[in-house]
């Protein structure tokens, strides 16, 4: 096995394209190293992108934020501007694993791992985040919700990798939130996750919303019916009830060691209502 550590994006693209065998991109490594250890992954090469300075930065862009693929959860939480604009995304990223994991894990890696239960992904989807994908044919931008294609599967072509995540400019009077359910208070994989991002008009009417669910389908899903339940309302009890029902209806989970179908379906609605309330408060509603 080879360990490759390019220092520029161009070199990384080149090395990945040139590598004859199975080459895996290493960002935080909190998923990849577990796979290596268990024998579930036996790549010929590992390409570490952490020495590429451009991928280690959070930079302002068009009023939003571009987060490099090698930025850790801890670094996101320490970024005041990002926390102010997208508290739900930062909270979701902060829920990935322990303090130790936070020192390493990245939202790009969380996305590429393509687990339906990934914590940061519903929050990114609700935020309308866009992944910038680098490859031998240049870069392309893909909406985050279109990246995962199934458990462990993404839309990335061979020799492509996610270089950064873009969070768009935050409209006035808007807020986002992410909640997940886990059996303990920490250290668990989400049994259900739900993110809500919404924008209010001056009179407190919801003018735009995005709602996303995790761990209730083969991928994280965007639930337009749930957003529709909020849009045009004052996010009152009736709207929240409709939101919860839409989420419960959209949930199509499996039963496994972490939760039953009935539980996940029910809790999807509960979390949606609670997350919407937080987002509403953050939007100044």
């Amino acid at each position, binding site marked *: *096995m*080879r*360990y490759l*550590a390019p220092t520029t994006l161009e070199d990384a693209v080149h090395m990945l394209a040139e590598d004859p065998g199975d080459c895996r991109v*290493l960002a935080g*490594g*909190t998923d990849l*190293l*577990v796979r*290596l*250890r*268990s024998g579930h992954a036996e790549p010929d090469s*590992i390409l*570490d992108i*952490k020495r590429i300075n451009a991928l280690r930065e959070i930079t302002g862009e068009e009023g939003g934020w571009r987060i490099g693929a090698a930025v*850790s959860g*801890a670094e996101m939480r320490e970024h005041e501007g990002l926390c102010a604009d997208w508290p739900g995304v930062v909270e979701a990223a902060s829920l990935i*694993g*322990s*303090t*130790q*994991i936070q*020192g*390493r894990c990245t939202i790009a890696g969380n996305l590429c791992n393509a687990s339906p239960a990934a914590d940061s992904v519903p929050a990114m989807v609700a935020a309308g985040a866009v992944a910038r994908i680098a490859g031998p044919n240049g870069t392309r931008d893909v909406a985050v919700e279109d990246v995962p294609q199934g458990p462990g599967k993404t839309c990335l072509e061979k020799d492509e990798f996610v270089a950064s995540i873009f969070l768009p400019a935050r409209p006035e009077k808007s807020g986002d939130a992410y909640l997940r359910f886990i059996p303990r*208070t*920490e*250290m668990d994989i989400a049994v259900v996750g739900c993110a809500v991002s919404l924008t209010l008009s001056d009179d407190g009417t919801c003018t735009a919303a995005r709602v996303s669910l995790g761990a209730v389908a083969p991928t994280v899903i965007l639930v337009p019916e749930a957003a529709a339940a909020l849009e045009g309302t004052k996010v009152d009890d009736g709207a929240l009830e409709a939101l919860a029902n839409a989420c419960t209806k959209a949930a199509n989970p499996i039963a496994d060691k972490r939760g039953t179908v009935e539980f996940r379906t029910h809790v999807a609605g509960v979390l949606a209502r609670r997350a919407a309330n937080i987002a509403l408060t953050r939007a100044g509603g």
Partner: protein
Amino acid sequence: MSKIHVTTKINGDPVEYLCEPDETLLDVLRDKLGMTGSKEGCGTGDCGACSVTVNGRLVCSCLVLGAEAEGTEIGTIEGMAQGEALHPLQQKFIEHAALQCGICTPGILVAAKSLLENNPDPTEEETRYWLAGNLCRCTGYDKIIRAVLDAAADMREAS
């Protein structure tokens, strides 16, 4: 497999080693450098017994490749005491009986030190969440939390 030459600093000392590309920092510390204070409880980042700092950032050394340590500064439990002088956290852990078997203790101390560097005056809840990735099966965490909060108070007073 071709080995990788790594130059790094561990607890302030310059260190060089050769490692396999897929060898973890924990394996390097324990098997190559004889620093067995960092423990392997799970190998999957779920127990925190292998906690170290890399460039001041708390991580699980079982989830870091040895090759990644090139040019970094690593901090381990072996570097926590200054000569004979124990770190206040180490002293408080002994005084509060905050360890029973002691296998999780090095990782918890490294994590707690990192907490107090980030937040010299943590609440009980902040301490519990910061240490949630450090499993202890003996103590029920009660005396550990008390020891950390007591050490924090002493360190604030001393500074």
